[in-house]
């Protein structure tokens, strides 16, 4: 389960930030909490729509992808700070990421109140039609006298408070599970993936047979693709096509790009297929993903793409243990997004982590504790099969 914690203040010093950071650290075995800031979000103004600006879109995407949200609010003038209200206004204007999202409210204050009035207002605001969040009923967490509440390491000092916070968080986790079950019933099932890439996106090169062995050459000619020592302007830099190739070839991993239309567009061709962790051949490039995988693997491929396309996760990781005990090969399926945050395909990078881990252990003088075998089989065999065969030779 993945939660985001929103710091409800744009102040440089905020005990509410400290509270969220503490929760994220203290309860990490229970749930993943990513702490998000609102300081770079402009004041809401309906005459000056900045919904598409990077800071608002970032917050939007993070909330959409999270299973639930924790908001920590201070109290200003007996209510929530203007900065937090402003964020909620942006998030209920043209976009509505909090709709049906489970939300837990916490708050810290200098005095006894623990932001009690601000929390009540926040409940009322989150219940407004444009926001429509699912706020955890009851279970207020009011942290008063906050200056004395934390020790030097940012941990809560009082054990009772700690326990109470943990029990509240556990209730919230149950609430999230419940709400998301309710939602599932309403939600239309994700569209099936078009693994045969019969669709078309803006960058699809048309009228070239996707399954042609020389698709790259044909497609390159069709669009007049540059090559060799021609310069290409990138973010941020200028390289020649040759330099880009050298650069990508030098990556200590196998890289593959499939676009949002599920067409296999690129891999850094360094080795022959039988020397690779996941075999690829030059003539496969251009193929629809369905053509590069055995029939049995397609369900797994579809699942991975849907996870990335819907934003359920940004990266699916699978350990493939079949390379032997001296390697820890991981297939990473990383979502690619365009500048507006839209799904733009998969960056699959495959590498052996073992040398990195070994180096880390050597540098820090640490040793692995426990059974090495237990670690290498971290992902179950059946699960690995479903997904790892996403890149087994077809």
């Amino acid at each position, binding site marked *: 389960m993945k939660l985001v914690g929103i710091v409800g*203040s*744009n*102040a*440089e*010093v905020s005990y509410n930030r400290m509270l969220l950071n503490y929760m994220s650290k203290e309860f990490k075995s229970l749930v993943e909490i990513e702490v998000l800031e609102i*300081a770079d979000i*402009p*004041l*809401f*103004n*309906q*005459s000056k729509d900045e919904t598409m600006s990077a800071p608002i879109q970032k917050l939007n995407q993070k909330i959409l992808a999270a299973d639930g949200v924790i908001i920590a609010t201070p*109290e*200003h*003038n*007996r*209510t*929530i*700070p*203007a*900065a937090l*209200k*402003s964020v*909620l*206004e942006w998030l*209920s204007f043209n976009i509505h990421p909090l709709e049906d999202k489970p939300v837990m409210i916490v708050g810290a*204050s*200098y*005095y006894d109140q623990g932001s009690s*009035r601000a929390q009540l*207002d926040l409940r*009322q*605001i989150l*219940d*407004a039609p*444009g*926001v429509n969040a699912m706020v955890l009923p009851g279970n207020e967490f009011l942290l008063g006298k906050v*200056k004395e509440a934390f020790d030097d390491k940012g941990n809560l000092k009082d054990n009772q408070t700690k326990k109470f916070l943990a029990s509240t968080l556990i209730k919230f986790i149950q609430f999230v599970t419940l709400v998301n079950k309710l939602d599932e019933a309403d939600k239309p099932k994700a569209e099936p993936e078009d693994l045969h890439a019969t669709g078309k996106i803006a960058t699809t090169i048309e009228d070239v047979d996707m399954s042609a062995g020389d698709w790259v050459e044909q497609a390159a000619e069709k669009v007049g693709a540059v090559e060799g020592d021609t310069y290409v302007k990138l973010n941020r830099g200028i390289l020649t096509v040759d330099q880009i190739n050298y650069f990508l070839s030098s990556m200590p991993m196998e890289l593959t790009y499939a676009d949002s239309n599920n067409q296999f567009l690129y891999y850094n061709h360094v080795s022959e297929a039988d020397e690779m962790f996941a075999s690829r051949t030059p003539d496969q490039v251009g193929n629809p993903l369905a053509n590069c995988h055995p029939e049995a693997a397609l369900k797994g491929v579809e699942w991975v793409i849907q996870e990335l396309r819907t934003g359920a996760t940004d990266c699916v990781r699978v350990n493939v243990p079949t390379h032997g005990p001296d390697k820890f090969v991981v297939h990473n399926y990383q979502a690619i997004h365009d500048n507006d945050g839209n799904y733009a395909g998969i960056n699959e990078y495959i590498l052996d982590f073992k040398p990195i881990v070994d180096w880390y252990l050597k540098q820090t003088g640490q040793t692995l504790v426990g059974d090495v075998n237990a670690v290498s089989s971290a992902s179950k065999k059946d699960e690995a099969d479903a997904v790892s065969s996403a890149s087994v030779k077809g």
Partner: protein
Amino acid sequence: MKKMIGIVGTNSDNSTNRELLKFMARHFKDVAEIEVVEIKEIPLFNKPESKEVPPLIKELAQKIEASDGVIISTPEYDHAVPASLMNALNWLSYHIYPFVDKPVMITGASYGTLGSSRAQQHLRQTLDSPELKARIMPSSEFLLSHSLQAFDDEGNLKDQIQIKKLEGLFSDFVLFSEMVKTFNQTHLLNKKEAENFSWENL
């Protein structure tokens, strides 16, 4: 002649709350001088460590200080006061205290039926906070619903019953602002309390 400040409770370019205050300024010009002021240009409050208040806010604070009363007209965003108005109030209680014991009348307009009723309640609560300590006119609500249809081409309220109600409330407010002066025995103390008030040092 009373000198009043009317605060447009939004930074939006188009606002029927602005229209309402402008109408009041014209309609009541024989009773009071109402200066309509904007909060559009006020930067986002972030509790600066420097404790420095921008000149714009200081100027607004001085106007409020010098006035006999303040009318705030608030829209309703998400069941509450707009962030831009909350923002102005955050600034106007940060090491400056123009609202302490200041008579305040709350009005509000909305496109729908409710006339910003929840935002007005929220604003009352905010103005009653220890940092603001305003004297809010009791038991008084002016809720202008369906505000897009409420004005004629000259910007005057069309509905005579609404105008009567507003006239009644406003003459009450003029009286109230006078009365508040008489029950200001604790004014100096209140001012001092607000100035010394700091959540950090409680």
